[in-house]
C-alpha cells in the first residue's frame, strides 16, 4: 500500500505492518499478514473481503479492541499498540465510535438516553448545537422517547449512528452496519453515514461484504487471506463486485 504516502499527518487511523496470529502449533491461524494501511481524515473507507479474509480482525485491531501480534496501530496521534486498559478506555471515550451489526442499544434506555450514553459514561455534557445537528441528520426527533423495542431496525441503527457521532470521535468504526437491515433501511443508514462524512468531516471505517454498501464509500480496501490485495477509489457497486469476483479466483488477481 503506497497510495497514501505523504498524507500521514491527515491519517485518522493507521496500521503499520500489522500481524495477528491466533493459537499456536497446528491450530495456528494467521488472520493478518503484515497489513499496512492508512485511513484519511474526513473520508469514508470500506474494508471488503470474503469471509475469513481478516477484515473484521483488521477493524478490531485498528479500534484497539484486539491486540496485535506484531506491528503498530495508531489513531490520530495516539499509538494504540501497547496501551493499557486505562489508556484504551480513554481512547474509546475520546477518539473512537462504534456502530454494530446488531445495533447494540440498551433495551432499558430510551433512544435519547442511548444516544447520550457515551457522554454520560465519560461524565460530559453534550454540545447542544451538535446534538441538534446529529438528531436532525438522523431524523429521529419524534422518536427520542421511544425504547429500542418500539423502533424499527433502521431506526435503531440510526440511533446507534447518532450515538457514535454525538461525541465527535476521531474515527467511527462500523461493523457490517447494514447486515441486519432490509435494503431500504440499509440505504438510509448508508446515505446518512456518507452525509456525515461529506457535511461534517467525520471519518468512518466500515467493514462490509455487501458491494452495494461499499459503493457508498470514498475508497474500498480489499483483503484476502489477511493481506491487502486491492483498492478502489470512488467505487461503484459494479467495480466493487468485479474486484470481489477476481478475489474469489485468486489466480486472476493482479496488483
Amino acid at each position: 500500500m503506497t497510495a497514501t504516502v505523504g498524507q500521514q499527518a491527515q491519517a485518522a487511523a493507521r496500521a503499520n505492518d500489522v500481524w495477528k496470529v491466533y493459537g499456536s502449533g497446528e491450530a495456528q491461524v494467521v488472520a493478518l499478514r503484515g497489513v499496512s494501511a492508512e485511513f484519511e481524515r474526513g473520508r469514508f473507507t470500506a474494508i471488503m473481503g470474503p469471509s475469513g479474509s481478516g477484515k473484521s480482525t483488521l477493524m478490531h485491531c485498528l479500534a484497539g479492541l484486539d491486540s496485535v501480534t506484531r506491528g503498530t496501530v495508531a489513531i490520530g496521534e495516539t499509538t494504540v499498540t501497547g496501551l493499557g486498559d486505562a489508556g484504551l478506555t480513554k481512547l474509546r471515550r475520546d477518539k473512537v465510535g462504534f456502530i454494530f451489526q446488531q445495533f447494540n442499544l440498551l433495551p432499558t434506555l430510551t433512544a435519547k438516553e442511548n444516544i447520550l450514553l457515551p457522554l454520560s459514561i465519560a461524565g460530559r455534557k453534550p454540545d447542544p448545537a451538535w446534538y441538534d445537528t446529529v438528531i436532525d441528520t438522523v431524523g429521529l426527533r419524534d422518536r427520542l422517547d421511544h425504547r429500542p423495542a418500539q423502533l424499527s431496525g433502521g431506526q435503531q441503527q440510526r440511533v446507534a449512528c447518532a450515538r457514535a457521532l454525538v461525541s465527535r470521535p476521531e474515527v467511527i468504526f462500523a461493523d457490517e452496519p447494514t447486515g441486519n437491515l432490509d435494503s431500504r433501511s440499509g440505504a438510509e443508514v448508508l446515505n446518512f453515514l456518507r452525509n456525515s462524512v461529506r457535511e461534517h468531516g467525520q471519518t468512518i471505517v466500515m467493514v462490509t461484504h455487501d458491494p452495494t454498501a461499499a459503493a457508498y464509500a470514498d475508497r474500498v480496501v480489499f483483503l484476502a487471506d489477511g493481506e491487502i490485495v486491492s483498492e478502489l477509489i470512488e467505487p461503484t457497486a459494479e467495480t466493487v463486485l468485479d474486484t470481489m469476483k477476481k478475489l474469489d479466483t485468486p489466480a486472476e488477481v493482479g496488483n
Partner: protein
Amino acid sequence: MFRATLKSLLARKVRLILSGLAVVLGVMFVSGAFVLTDTLGRSFDSVFADGFSEIDVNVAAKPKVQVNEMEGEQTVAPLPAALVDRVKQVPGAASATGVVNADGARVIGSNGKVVTSFGPPQLGENWTGESELLQLREGRAPQAEDEIVINKALATAAKVQVGQKVGVLTAFESKKRDFTLVGVFGYSGDRDSIGGVNEVFFTTPVAQRLMLGEPDVFSSITVQAADGVSDEKLRDDVARTLGADFEVKTGEQVAADASASLKEGLSFFNKILLGFAAVALLVGTFLILNTFSIIVAQRTRELALMRAIGASGRQIIGSVVLEAIAVGLIASVLGLAAGIGVGALLAFLFGKLAGGLTLAGIGVPAAAVIGSFGVGLVITVVAALLPALRASRIPPIAAMQDVATPDRPLTKVTVAGSLVTGVGAVLLFLGLSGNAGGQTLATILGGVLFAFIGVALLTPLISRPVVSLLGAIFSWSVPGKLGRLNSGRNPRRTAITAAALMVGIALVTGVTVILDSAKGSISALAKDTIKAELVIAGQQGGPRPPTFDPGVLDRAKALPGVRMVDGEYGDMGRIDGESTWVAASSDIASLRQIFGAKPTAGDIDRLGPTQMLASSDTATSRGWSVGSTVNVQLTRGEARTYTISGIYESSQLTNPVTLPATAAKDFAIPQPIQGFIQLAPGTRVSDVQPQVEALLADSPEVSVADRDAFIKQQTSSLDGLLTMIQILLALAIVIAVLGIINTLALSVLERTRELGLLRAIGLRRSQTMGMITVEAVVISVFGALLGVVVGTGLGAAVVEALKDEGITDLILPWGQMGVFLGLAAVIGVVAAVLPAVRAARINVLGAIAHD
C-alpha cells in the same frame, strides 16, 4: 451511567426479587431478634417497676450463694423477724413490713394437676393487706391457718372458686395440703397478674413455715418513707443502722436489678437468634453471588457495549455494586419491616405463653435498624463483588462477536477450595481439641465457616462426576437426559446453587449426629448403669424442677419387694468460695448399688453428718484428697466445714459433690427431685408400680415410671432442642430453595432460543417441564448429599472431641439422612414448578427468532 444502572435494575426487577428475598429473610431474622428481645426487655422493666412500685426501700439478706439466670432462681436467705422493729426505729421510716415472698407455691387445679407458669415464678407470700396496686376482687383476706387468697389469673387457670378447698404444694412441703380459698385478688388497671406470676397469699405464720421453712423469719422488709424523706436518704439511713450484712435498696433499684438479671437471659437468647440469622445470611450470600454472576453473564453483550463506548473497568464494577447496594437497601428495608412484624408476633406469643405478660409497646431499637442495614448492605455488596470484578474483565470486543465464555479450568478454584477447607479443618481441630486458647467457640465457628466456603469452592470439581451419576437415574427418558446434561453444563452455577442447600442440610445433619450420639450414649450408659427398676420424676415446666414429698421415700421402702429407695436432692452451693453443683442422696449406699459408682479413694458407702464425697474429676481439679476439709455454703443456713471421706470415679451419672442427706434441708429446694427404686430379685415391676403411684397421690408434680421410660423422658429434652434447631435452620433451607428457583429461572431465560428449538423439533410441553424438573432435582439432591456428607463429618468430629465428656457412641441418623435426601428431591420438584411452567410457555416461533 448511574441512570443506566438504575434503569437496567428496574428492568430486571423480577430476577432480583428472588435474590433480594434471601437478604430480606436474613435481615428479618436479625431485626426480629432485636425487636423481640427489646420488647420483652421493656415489658419486664415495666413488670418489675410495677411490682416494686409501692416499695420505697427494701431490706434483704445478702444471698449466700449467687446464682445467675442460667443456673436458676436466686433464693435469698431469710431475715429474723426482730429486724422489722429495728428498721421501724430508723428516723424517716413511716412503716416497715416483714414480707414472705418465695418461689415454689404450686396450686393444684381442679383437674388434679399442678398449675404451671412456664417461666415466671410461683410465689408464696404472707398477706399484708390491700394496696393501691393489689385489690381483692372477691372474698376476704386470709385469717385462719388454712385460708389462702390467690390472684385472678391463677384462679382462672386452676378453675377454682372462692369457698372451695384448694390443694397447694409449698417450698417446704411437696405433699399436697388443702386450704380454703377465701379470696381472689387482682391488680390496678384490671390486670389479673403481673407478668404471668402466680401468687398464693397465706397468713404470715403459715407463709413463714411453708415457704421459708422456719417461724419468725421474713424474705425481706419493705419500708415506707415518711413524708418529706427521699427514698435514697431513707435507704442510706437504714443501711447505716443495719450494717453491712444486708442489701438495702430503693424500690427502683430492686426493680432494675431484677429486670437486669432477666435481661441477661434475654441477651443470651438474642445471641442464639443472631447465630441462626448468620446462617441464613451465609446461605443468602451464596444465592446473591450466584444471581449476580448469572446476571453478569447474561449481560455480557451489554456490558461489553458499555466498555466499547468508553466505560472504564471501574465504572462497570461501580454499576454492578450500585445494583447490589440498591438491592441490599430495598431488601434491608423490607427485612427490617418483616422483622418488626415477626418480633412483635413472637413477643405476643411469648406474652401469652408466659401467662399474660403485659407487653410494653413494640419498639424498634437502634440495634435493629443498624444491624439490618449493616448486615443487609454488607452481605449484598460483598456477594456482588466477585461478579462485579468478572464483569469488569469482559472485553469490549464481546459486543461484536458471540464470545463463547470459555469453560475456564477449575484448577484455581479447586486449589483455593482445598486451601480454605484445610484452614477450616485446622481451625476445627484446634477448637475441638481445646487448643484454641480461650477462643474455643469462635475457633470452632470459624472452622465451620471456612469448611463450608472451602467445600463450596471444591463443589464444581465434585459436581461433574456426582451430578452425572445422580442424573443417570433419569437418563431413561430424553427429557431426563437433557435435564441431566443441563445440570452438568455450568458446574460453577450448579455448585453454588447446591452449596447453598448444603449449608442448611449440613448444619441440621451435624446437629442431629451430635444430639443423637449424645442421646444414644447417655441412654446406653444409663441403661447399663442405673440399677433401679422404677423412677419417680416429673416434667419440668418452669425454672423450678418438680419435687415430691420425701415421706414417699420411706413408705416406698416399706413396700414388699422393694430393696432400696433413693431420693436425689440438688443445689448450687459455694465450696471454698467457688460455685459448685452439690447433690445429696437420701440413701448413700445407692451411689454404688444404683448408680454403679466405683470408689477411687476412701469409703463411699457411708457418709457422716460432716463428711462429703467428691467425684474424681472434681477432686483432681480442686486439689482434694481424702481427709481434705472444705467450707460449704448452701442457699440457706450457715457455712459449714466438711471433710472429704471418699472419692468416686467420675461418670456421666455422678455428681461433682455428694453431701449427706441432712444437708438437703438447706438446699434452695429442700425436697427430692428424683427418686430411684430398686426391686428385690424376682419382683415384678408391674406389682410395685401401682403401689408407688398410690403413694404419690399427694405429690401431683411427679409420677413413677419404669427405668426405660424415665431415660426416654430425660433425653426427650434433647428431642425438643433438636426440633427447635431444625425449625430455625429450615429458614436457611428455604433460602436455598429460593436459590434453586432463581438459578433455574435464569437458566430458562438464558436458554430461550434453545428451548424454542427443542419445542420446534417436537418436545412436548410436559417433556419440557420434565426436563427442567430433572435439572432441579439433580441440583437439590446433589446439594443435600453434600450437606449430609459434610454435616456427618462435622458432627463426627464434634462427637470425637466430646469423647471425654461421655459421648462415646457415634450414632449416624441414617433415617434422617434418607429423609433429607428425599426432602431434597421434593424441594427440587417444588423449585422447578415456576421455571418449568415458564419454559413450557415459551412461544416457539418467538424463541427461535429471539435475538
